[in-house]
C-alpha cells in the first residue's frame, strides 16, 4: 500500500513534469507560429524597426497576388501563414451549454474558410479559452490572449467584457461581445467592440408590442403585462425595454419581476407572483431551464396567458418536455437570427458547414460572429495593416456585412442610432418541426420592428451597468 | 585531614596553588562573557557564562560555609550530570572541602555505605528519588550528614525533614553569607595547599566494597597538564581551547568524566553541554556536535550497533550507497590501521569519494561531524569498533589510566595510533611493566594520595619502591605502545594450564550489535564457555523482521532462532582465536543485567563474582 502510494505520487509528479515540458514543447515546436514569448520578442523587434514588412514568402494566393503583404504584429505569422483569433468563451460556467455550440459554429465556419484557401492564403486558428463565466478568469485569460492573437473572436458576458474594455482600448485590440447589451451602442464604450444583433431592450420592445397586438386580435382590449427576468445586464436591460414599451403602448405592468429569476433557487415563487397578477401577457428573460421552471409552475396552477421571451429563453428541448403542448398554445419566441433549418441562403450555408452536428439555434450566432471577424480581417488585409490596431480600425469601417438573410446586415459606420439593429424575428414553437429533427422553431415574422423600437432614441444604455 | 586550618581573613594573600576552582576564577577574569556550560531546559540550551558560573560557585561556597562545612569536610553529590554538580564540586574545592560523587544508580545500601565511609557533612541529592535513598533509611543511619540539598523540588514539598534544603534557598543563604562575610571563599581558596584532597573517587568495586581514592590539587594539576593539554592529541594538533564543545553525559563521579568534563572546562576553557539524560545522548550529540568526545566502549559499541542497524534498514537506493560507503570505510580503516592512523593517498582518495557520498551525512546524523578528538577508555574495546569509526573519519583514540593515577598512564597520539593498544606513556612520567607479572606500574605526580581512611589498602596498591600497582597486565608493542592483556584478577588459567585473557574474546563478541554482555568462563576448567546476554532493542527488531513473536527478554533470549544466531556470532569470534581460546559452549543470560541487582558495577562492568553466584546453575550446566 505504502509503496503503491509513493509510486502514484511519483507518477503524478512525473506527469506534472511531463505536462510542463509538454507546454514548453508547444512553444518550441510551433516557433513558426508566434506563441508565448517567442512571438512577443519578435514583434517588439519589428515594432522598433518601424514599419518593417516581412517580405519573405508572400502567400501566393489568387486573391492576394496583386496585393502587397500587410503589416502585421501580434497573432499573424506570414511565414507560417496563420492568423490566430482569441476566444473568451464560457464553456463550463453558467452559460456553458449556450456558448459551447456558438464556439462550434465558429470552428465550423473557420474550418470551411480555411478549406477554401483561408484569408488570402492565411489559415485561421482559434485560440479558445474557457472563462467559466468568471470575471477574474476573463481578465486573466484576456491577458494571455492579447499577446498571441490578432483579435478577440468573442468575449462572453457584459460585465466581463466591460472589465476588459479599458484594456482593449489601450491595447488597441478588437473584440466581438457575445452579449446583446444595449450599452454597446455607446461609441465611447464600443470603440474597440463590434456589437451585433438586436439589443435586449429593443428585442423586448418588439415582442411586447407584437404580443400586445396578438392579444388585441384575440379580443383582449386592454391587456395587462407581467414581466420577470434574470438579474444582471441581460435580464434588466430587457426589462427596461419592456417597461418602455409598456409605457409607450399604455399597457399596465401588473407584476414587475425584474431580476427575480435567480439561478439555483426555487422558481415557484416567481411563477406564483405572475399567476397572482392575473396578467394577460408575460415577458420572460431567462434561459430555457429557468423559463421552463417558471412557466411550468405557472401553468400548474392553471394560469393562461400569452407568453413570450427573449432569445436565450428558448431551447428546442422544451418541445420534448411535457410543456410542449402548452407552449405551442402560449409561446411567442424571438431571436435576431433566423432559426436552424430556415431557408435563407445564410442558414443553408451554415447547415452545410455544420454537417451532422446536432441541431441548435446557436450555431448561427457563432457563424455571425465569425463572419464579422472574417470581413474585418479581409478589410484589414486590403488596407495593408493587419496589426491589432489595424484590424480594429478596419472593422470599425465595415459596412453592410451580409449574412445571407440569416441575420440583419451589420454596419459600423454612422450615428449610433442609425446603425443599431432593431429587427427581431418572431417564431412559434412547433412540435412537428421538432419531430422532424429540427429545433422546432417556426418563423412567423421575419425582420419585425415595432414602432416603439423603431422610434426609440438611444441616449445611453437602457440599463446602466 | 581533619586538622583545622586557621581561616585567613585577608584575601590578599596570593596563592601559589592553582586549584580547579581558582582556574574558573581566572577564566571569569579573562573571558567573563565566554560560555562555560550549557544545560538543556525546555528545549533550549541555556548558557552559563564564566562570570556567572564563578559567581555561583562563590555563592555556593558561601552557602557551604554557612552550613558549617569546614576545611577537609566531605560534600557528597548524588545526582545526574547537571550544572549544580559542577558548581557544588568546585565550590567545595574552593573552600578546601572534599567532594565525592555517587552514581545516580547507586541503590540505598550503597548510598548508606558511601556516605558513612566518607563521613559526608552535606549531601546533595538531586531529586525525590535520591532524597528517598537517604530518608528512607533508619533515622540515624547517616550520623554525619547535617544537610541534604536538592534541586528538583517536585514531590518534596511535604517532606518534613529538617536537614532538607532547596537549592535556591541554599544559594540565597550563600548570598546572605557572602554579604556578611565578603571574600571568605576567596580567602580560603587562596590558602589552598597542593596536598589538599579535593575529591574522593570511589572505585567501582568489582571485588569487595568500594574504596575512596583521594585525589588532591597536585593530582588535578598534573592530570590537567598531561591529559587535557597533551601535545598532539587532536586531529589538528591544537590543544583543547574555549571554542571546543564537550557533551557531558557519563557520571561525573567517575574519574574519566570528571577529567573530560570538569577538568577540561577549568583547564582549557571548553564548553560543557549537559546531556538531558542517557536516553537522549544520541539526540544531544546531534545538537551539540561536540568537538571533543569521550565515551566508554559500551557507548561506542552502542553507536556502532545503531549505525549498522540503521544503515541496513534504509530504503533500497540508500542501501546501495551505504554498501559502497561501508566498503570504502572498510578499506580506509584497514589502510589507516596499517599506517598508524594516517591517511595514505589511496585512503585519502577513498575518503574523498566516501565523504560526500555518505560519511559526512552519517557523522552529522551521529553527531560526530565536528569531532576533532574522540577517545575511549575505562574498559577494553574491540579493535573492530575502533576501525569502524576510523573508516568514517572519526578516529577514536584509546587511552588508559585509572582513578589511582588520575588516569594518567598512556594514550594514542594522533598520527601514532596503534589499534589494539592503549598507546604510549605520557611524556616524562614513570611507567614500567613489572618484569614478573607484566603488571603496569606508574609513578608520577598524578598518583593518588591514598585510599580514604584505608592506609593498609593504600599500602597494598603501592610497590615497595613507591610505584602504583595498576592491577592490569600489559605488554609492550614495538617498545613504544602498550597493549593491555587483562586485569590480573581476570586472567583465566584453564585446567590445561593455559593463560587466557577473557576480555579480548568478550569484546570480540560484543562487537556484534546483538550482543550486549558476554562473560567468558574457564578458570580451572577444561575448556572455555560463555554467558551471553543479548541487546534487547536490536534483537527485538531482528525478531520483528523475522516474524518471531516474543514476550519478555527471557523469552526472546531463549528463542531457538536467537540461540542459533548467537551461535553463528560465537562461531565467527572463534574463528579469530586459537583453539584453546575458543568458546565451546554458551548459555544465554536470562535477564538484563542491572546495577541495582548487583550484577553490574555502577560503571556497567560485570561483577564476575556476583555473576558466578547468581548463575551457578548455568555455569555448572556448561561443564556437565
Amino acid at each position: 500500500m505504502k509503496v503503491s502510494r509513493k509510486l502514484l505520487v511519483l507518477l503524478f509528479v512525473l506527469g506534472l513534469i511531463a505536462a510542463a515540458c509538454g507546454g514548453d514543447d508547444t512553444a518550441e515546436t510551433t516557433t513558426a507560429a508566434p506563441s508565448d514569448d517567442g512571438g512577443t520578442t519578435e514583434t517588439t523587434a519589428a515594432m522598433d524597426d518601424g514599419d518593417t514588412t516581412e517580405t519573405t514568402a508572400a502567400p501566393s494566393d489568387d486573391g492576394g497576388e496583386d496585393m502587397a503583404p500587410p503589416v502585421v504584429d501580434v497573432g499573424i505569422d506570414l511565414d507560417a501563414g496563420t492568423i490566430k483569433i482569441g476566444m473568451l468563451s464560457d464553456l463550463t460556467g453558467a452559460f456553458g451549454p449556450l456558448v459551447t455550440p456558438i464556439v462550434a459554429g465558429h470552428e465550423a465556419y473557420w474550418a470551411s474558410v480555411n478549406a477554401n484557401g483561408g484569408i488570402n492564403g492565411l489559415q485561421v486558428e482559434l485560440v479558445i479559452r474557457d472563462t467559466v463565466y468568471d470575471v477574474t478568469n476573463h481578465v486573466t485569460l484576456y491577458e494571455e490572449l492579447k499577446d498571441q492573437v490578432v483579435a478577440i473572436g468573442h468575449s462572453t458576458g457584459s460585465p466581463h467584457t466591460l472589465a476588459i474594455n479599458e484594456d482593449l482600448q489601450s491595447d488597441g485590440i478588437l473584440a466581438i461581445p457575445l452579449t446583446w447589451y444595449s450599452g454597446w451602442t455607446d461609441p465611447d464604450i464600443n470603440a474597440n467592440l463590434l456589437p451585433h444583433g438586436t439589443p435586449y431592450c429593443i428585442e423586448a420592445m418588439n415582442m411586447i408590442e407584437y404580443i400586445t397586438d396578438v392579444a388585441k386580435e384575440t379580443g383582449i382590449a386592454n391587456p395587462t403585462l407581467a414581466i420577470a427576468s434574470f438579474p444582471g445586464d441581460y435580464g434588466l436591460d430587457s426589462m427596461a425595454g419592456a417597461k418602455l414599451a409598456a409605457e409607450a403602448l399604455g399597457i399596465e405592468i401588473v407584476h414587475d419581476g425584474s431580476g427575480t429569476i435567480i439561478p439555483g433557487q426555487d422558481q415557484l415563487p416567481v411563477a406564483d407572483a405572475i399567476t397572482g397578477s392575473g396578467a394577460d401577457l408575460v415577458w420572460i428573460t431567462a434561459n430555457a431551464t429557468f423559463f421552463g421552471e417558471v412557466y411550468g409552475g405557472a401553468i400548474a396552477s392553471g394560469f393562461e396567458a400569452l407568453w413570450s421571451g427573449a432569445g436565450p429563453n428558448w431551447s428546442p428541448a422544451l418541445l420534448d418536455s411535457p410543456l410542449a403542448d402548452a407552449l405551442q398554445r402560449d409561446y411567442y419566441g424571438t431571436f435576431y437570427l433566423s432559426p436552424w433549418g430556415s431557408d435563407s441562403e445564410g442558414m443553408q450555408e451554415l447547415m452545410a458547414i455544420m454537417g451532422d452536428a446536432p441541431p441548435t439555434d446557436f450555431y448561427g450566432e457563432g457563424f455571425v460572429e465569425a463572419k464579422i471577424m472574417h470581413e474585418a480581417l479581409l478589410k484589414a488585409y486590403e488596407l495593408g495593416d493587419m496589426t491589432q490596431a489595424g484590424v480594429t480600425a478596419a472593422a470599425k469601417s465595415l459596412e453592410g456585412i451580409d449574412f445571407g438573410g440569416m441575420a440583419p446586415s451589420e454596419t459600423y459606420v454612422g450615428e449610433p442610432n442609425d446603425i443599431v439593429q432593431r429587427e427581431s424575428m418572431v417564431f412559434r414553437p412547433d412540435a412537428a418541426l421538432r419531430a422532424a429533427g429540427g429545433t422546432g422553431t417556426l418563423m412567423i415574422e421575419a425582420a419585425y420592428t415595432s414602432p416603439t423600437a423603431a422610434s426609440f432614441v438611444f441616449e445611453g444604455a437602457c440599463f446602466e451597468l | 585531614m581533619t586538622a583545622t586550618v586557621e581561616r585567613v581573613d585577608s584575601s590578599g594573600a596570593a596563592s601559589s596553588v592553582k586549584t580547579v576552582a581558582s582556574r574558573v576564577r581566572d577564566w571569569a577574569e579573562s573571558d567573563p562573557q565566554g560560555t562555560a556550560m550549557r544545560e538543556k531546559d525546555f528545549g533550549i540550551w541555556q548558557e552559563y557564562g564564566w562570570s556567572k558560573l564563578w559567581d555561583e560557585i562563590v555563592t555556593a561556597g558561601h552557602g557551604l560555609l554557612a552550613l558549617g562545612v569546614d576545611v577537609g569536610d566531605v560534600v557528597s553529590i548524588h545526582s545526574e550530570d547537571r550544572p549544580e554538580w559542577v558548581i557544588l564540586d568546585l565550590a567545595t574545592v574552593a573552600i578546601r572541602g572534599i567532594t565525592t560523587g555517587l552514581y545516580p544508580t547507586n541503590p540505598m545500601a550503597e548510598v548508606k555505605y558511601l556516605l558513612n565511609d566518607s563521613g559526608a557533612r552535606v549531601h546533595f541529592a538531586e531529586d525525590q528519588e535520591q532524597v528517598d535513598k537517604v530518608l528512607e533509611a533508619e533515622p540515624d543511619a547517616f550520623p554525619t550528614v547535617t544537610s541534604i540539598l536538592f534541586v528538583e523540588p517536585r514531590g518534596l514539598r511535604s517532606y518534613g525533614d529538617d536537614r532538607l534544603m532547596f537549592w535556591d534557598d541554599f544559594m540565597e543563604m550563600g548570598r546572605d553569607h557572602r554579604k556578611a562575610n565578603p571574600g571568605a571563599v576567596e580567602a580560603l581558596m587562596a590558602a589552598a595547599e597542593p596536598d589538599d584532597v579535593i575529591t574522593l573517587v570511589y572505585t567501582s568495586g568489582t571485588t569487595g566494597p568500594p574504596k575512596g581514592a583521594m585525589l588532591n590539587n597536585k593530582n588535578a594539576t598534573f592530570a590537567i597538564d598531561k591529559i587535557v593539554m597533551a601535545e598532539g592529541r587532536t586531529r589538528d594538533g591544537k590543544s583543547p581551547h574555549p571554542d571546543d564543545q564537550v557533551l557531558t553525559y557519563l557520571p561525573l563521579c567517575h574519574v574519566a568524566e570528571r577529567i573530560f568534563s570538569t577538568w577540561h572546562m577549568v583547564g582549557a576553557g571548553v564548553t560543557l553541554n549537559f546531556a538531558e539524560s542517557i536516553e537522549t545522548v544520541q539526540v544531544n550529540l546531534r545538537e551539540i556536535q561536540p568537538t571533543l568526545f569521550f565515551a566508554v566502549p559500551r557507548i561506542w559499541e552502542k553507536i556502532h550497533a545503531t549505525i549498522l542497524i540503521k544503515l541496513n534498514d534504509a530504503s533500497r537506493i540508500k542501501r546501495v550507497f551505504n554498501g559502497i560507503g561501508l566498503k570504502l570505510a572498510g578499506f580506509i580503516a584497514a589502510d589507516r590501521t596499517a599506517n598508524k592512523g594516517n591517511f595514505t593517498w589511496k585512503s585519502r582518495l577513498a575518503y574523498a569519494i566516501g565523504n560526500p557520498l555518505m560519511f559526512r551525512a552519517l557523522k552529522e546524523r551521529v553527531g560526530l561531524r565536528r569531532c576533532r578528538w574522540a577517545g575511549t577508555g575505562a574498559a577494553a574495546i574491540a579493535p573492530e569498533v575502533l576501525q569502524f569509526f576510523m573508516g568514517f573519519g572519526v578516529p577514536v583514540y584509546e587511552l588508559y589510566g585509572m582513578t589511582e593515577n588520575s588516569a594518567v598512564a598512556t594514550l594514542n597520539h594522533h598520527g601514532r595510533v596503534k589499534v589494539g593498544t592503549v598507546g604510549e606513556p605520557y611524556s616524562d612520567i614513570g611507567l614500567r611493566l613489572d618484569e614478573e607479572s607484566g603488571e603496569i606500574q606508574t609513578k608520577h605526580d598524578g598518583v593518588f594520595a591514598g585510599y580514604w581512611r584505608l592506609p593498609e589498602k593504600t599500602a597494598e596498591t603501592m610497590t615497595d619502591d613507591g610505584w602504583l600497582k595498576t592491577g592490569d597486565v600489559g605488554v609492550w608493542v614495538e617498545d613504544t605502545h602498550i597493549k593491555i592483556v587483562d586485569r590480573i584478577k581476570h586472567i583465566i588459567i584453564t585446567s590445561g594450564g593455559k593463560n587466557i585473557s577473557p576480555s579480548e574474546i568478550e569484546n570480540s563478541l560484543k562487537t556484534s550489535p546483538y550482543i550486549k554482555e558476554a562473560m567468558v568462563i574457564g578458570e580451572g576448567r577444561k575448556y572455555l564457555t560463555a554467558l551471553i546476554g543479548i541487546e534487547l532493542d536490536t534483537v527485538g527488531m531482528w525478531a520483528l523482521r523475522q516474524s518471531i513473536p516474543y514476550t519478555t527478554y527471557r523469552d526472546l533470549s531463549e528463542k531457538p532462532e536467537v540461540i542459533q544466531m548467537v551461535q553463528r556470532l560465537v562461531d565467527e569470534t572463534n574463528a579469530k582465536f586459537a583453539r584453546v581460546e575458543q568458546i565451546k559452549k554458551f548459555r544465554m543470560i536470562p535477564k538484563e543485567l542491572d546495577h541495582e541487582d548487583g550484577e553490574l558495577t555502577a560503571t556497567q562492568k560485570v561483577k564476575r563474582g556476583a555473576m558466578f553466584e547468581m548463575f551457578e546453575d548455568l555455569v555448572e550446566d556448561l561443564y556437565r
Partner: protein
Amino acid sequence: MRGRPHLYVSYESEQSLLPTWTQRVMVGLLVFLLVLIPLQGGIEIGDRLYQPVGFLGDNAWLKILSRVAIFGIGALGLNILTGLAGQVSLGHAFFMGIGAYTAAVLGGEVGKAHWGLGLPIWIWLPAAGLVAALVGMLVAPTAVKVRGLYLAIVTLGLVFIGEHLFRNLTSITGGSQSGRKFPSLDFRLWKEEEPFLAFTSDGPMWPVFNWLDWLFGPWINFPAEMSEEAKTYLALAALLVVVVVLAKNLQRTRIGRAFMALRDRDIAAEVMGVPDAKTKFEAFALSSFYAGIAGALLVAFIGRAIPEQFNLLLSVQFVVIVLIGGAGTVAGTLMGSVFVFVFPRLVQDFSGWLTETVESGGVIGSIADVFVSTGLDDPGLVSTLEGVSPGLNVSQLNVVIYGLLIIGFLIFEPLGLYGIWLRVRNYWKGWPFSY
C-alpha cells in the same frame, strides 16, 4: 553556533522564522527571483539576456502570478482558521465579499447608482480587512456553538446568505450579474488625482529600481519602463511577502499556539487554559481579516466583479488550496495556490501539445489519437473541437483533472504538496539512514 543547526541556545533562535543559514539563503534567493520575474527580458548581464524563470515574465503569467499572490493571501487567512485552529469553514468567499465591497464603498468612484467615497488605498485596504474581521466576529458566536461538519454547513449557509445580500444591496455591489467598478490598485495621497505610485499603468521604473540600477548599473541593465502587469505583480508580491511573514509569525505567538492547541485537542486545550470561545473568536476575526484584504485586492485587481463571484465555488477553491498545499503550513498554502492557478495553464498547454501531436501523426501521434477526438466521428476522451464532438473538451478536462487531483491528493498524500516536500526533504535529511 555555526554548523550546528539543531543547537538552540535561546528561544529566539529556536523560534526564529529562518533558523538556519541555508533557509535564509534559499528564501533570499526566492525573493530575489520573485523580483526578477517581471524584469526578465529587460535585464541584461553583459550582452546576454538573463532569464531566470523564462516564460514567467509574460504579462499573462504575471497576471496568473498576481492571482496566486491574492489567493495566497486569502488562503493564508483560511489556513489560520482551518489549518491552525482546526475550524472548518466554507464561508471564506463571504468574508472576501465583505472586504471587496468595503473597498468598493470606501475607495470606489461615485457612480450614478453606486456609493463611493474615492478614498485612497491606504484607507480602503486596511478597512476592508477590518470590516471583514468585524463581520467575522459577529458570525463567530454562532460558529462557536457548532463543530465539525455542522460548522462547515453553517459557513456554507453564510455564503448563500452573503450572496443574497450582495445581490440585493445594489447601491454597494452594483447588483447581480452586473457588478460595479472598483478602486484601482494605485497608491495615492489622499484624494489626489495623480497617484503617487501607480500599480495599474505603464510607466517608468520605480525609484527602488533606480537605486538598484545605480548599484548594479555596470553589470545589469534594468529596463527604463515597467508594464502595469509587472508593477501590479510586484506590489502584490510585496504584500504577499508581508502577509507571509505575519502568518508565519502568528504560529510563534501565544494566539497561534492557542489555535493549534484548540485544533489538536479542544477540550484538553480548554483544560490547559485556552478559552474555547475566545480563541475561536480570534481565529474567525483574523481569518476574516485576511479574507477581506484578499477580497479587496481581488476586485481591485480585476477592476470589476459581480456579486455571484463570491460563491461557494470560491470558498471551495480556498479549501482546496489549503488542503492540496498542506493544512496548517504557510509554505504548503503558498504551494497550493501556485498549484491551483498554474496547473490549469499546464493542462491547457498539454492538450495543445496533444492535439498537435495527433495532427503531426507518427507513432506518438497515433497513440495520442486514441485519446483525442478530432471530429464528430472520432471517439476519444478529449475533444479538440469545442463542445459538439464526443469527449470532454479541454476546459471540461481541466475541471475533471482538478477534481481528480483533489481526490488523489487527499487519498494518497493527505499532507498535500507540503507532505511531498517534507518527504523529499526528509529523504535527504535522513541520509544515509531512513529514519
